[in-house]
């Protein structure tokens, strides 16, 4: 039970620090009120969790295909459900961040914006497929196969596309990564940022475990 308190304290600390310490953005690079950049402490972890959830679900999808144990399918779907929520959050907060850093809410040549949007499309497609199949076993099968196909296609997009579009990110420096790809965070910013990353991951692990326990109970109730 103590780890729940740690999560509580940790997130509270991150929230307080995010608003009390100086804004992570350099006033000369920003196009809007400097304080809006604080969303960066929350946005990046959300995007990270959205991707992590998909990876978790992929692992369980593969396990399902190997063993045909429906409980793996439950875990895969649960992970994706959480991932969808975080992906929506990440897209919205990311759009705000983009507006402040680069002047527009959306831009298709910014690879980070494209990848989170594609992730959203993948989650949408995954649940559209699940909704369209009535039989649970078929649904689990098809959803698992589709997950793998999505993952491979997404890998192509994320790792190979930037090499195709040479000047893909024409964006000037932001507070995270500059032109040279180096991380340009100050020490305070760094602590809060990585702290937020850790807390969000722990939070996700907790919510995920909880959701799986609920889904397991529901499954057992239905099959008795």
């Amino acid at each position, binding site marked *: 039970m103590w780890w729940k308190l740690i999560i509580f304290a940790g997130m509270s600390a991150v929230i307080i620090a995010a608003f009390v310490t100086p804004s992570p953005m350099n006033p000369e690079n920003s196009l809007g009120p400097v304080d809006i950049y604080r969303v960066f402490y929350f946005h990046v972890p959300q995007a990270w969790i959205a991707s992590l959830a998909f990876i978790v679900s992929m692992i369980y999808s593969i396990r399902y295909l190997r063993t045909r144990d429906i409980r793996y399918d439950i875990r895969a779907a649960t992970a994706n459900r959480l991932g969808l929520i975080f992906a929506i959050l990440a897209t919205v907060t990311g759009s705000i961040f983009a507006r402040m850093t680069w002047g527009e809410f959306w831009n298709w040549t910014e690879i980070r914006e494209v990848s989170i949007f594609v992730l959203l499309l993948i989650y949408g497609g995954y649940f559209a497929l699940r909704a369209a199949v009535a039989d649970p076993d078929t649904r689990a099968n098809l959803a698992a196969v589709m997950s793998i196909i*999505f993952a491979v296609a997404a890998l192509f997009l994320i790792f190979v596309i930037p090499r195709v579009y040479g000047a893909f990110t024409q964006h000037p420096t932001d507070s995270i990564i500059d032109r040279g790809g180096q991380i340009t965070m100050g020490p305070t910013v760094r602590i809060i940022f990585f702290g937020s990353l850790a807390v969000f991951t722990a939070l996700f692990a907790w919510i995920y475990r909880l959701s799986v326990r609920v889904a397991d109970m529901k499954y057992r109730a239905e099959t008795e």
Partner: protein
Amino acid sequence: MPEKSVGWASKVLAVTAKDITTEFRTRYAVNAVVMFALVTLTAVSFALGLLQPSSEILAALFWVILFFAAMSGLAYSFIREEQSGTGLILRLSASGSVVLFGKMFFNFLLLLALTVLIVPLFMIFLKASPQDWPLFIAGVVLGDIGLAGATAIIAAIVSRATIRGALFTVLSFPVLLPLLVASIEISKVGFTGGNFSEIAAPMQLLVAYDVVMIVLSWLLFDFVWRR
């Protein structure tokens, strides 16, 4: 006299041939694909009026037309089997890979026929003329291979769903994005004419994509096809 075992390739072609003959009778897929492409092309051309789009836009328009035409017709090959009840016989008489590649090849031929029809019309309506023909053709053919290759298993998945609607398009779009990006890039250079180094990267990407997606489909197909 010992039975001569029929080669894998001829089995695949047999599936393709059967699809072609069925298509000749009903013409669902051909109609959908051709009409959709023509309508889209006409609408775009009409909307542009006297404006002459740049090569970038022309390349993008070309692939948008191909993409939506593919979405309207490539799923028929599998859906038809389920609807007419012939799926069971097919499962019994042919292995998974035979069915997959047979139908994949059918879809590829369909796209090829569409491409042959659309490219001249595209050139006429939009006054677009590729400067580098071999490059343009190579890009389009590789793109067609990818379109047919990546969507075959998705069509099989959709054929097993109870409610289909726009499922095929929804599932295919994220998967086809890398192909679209690379193909548009190559076609653009095909229109403006350029040297090979410009499109080396997208070309490699496209070939890699085609190979990976086809192999992946082959590995996963049995999970979709077998009940």
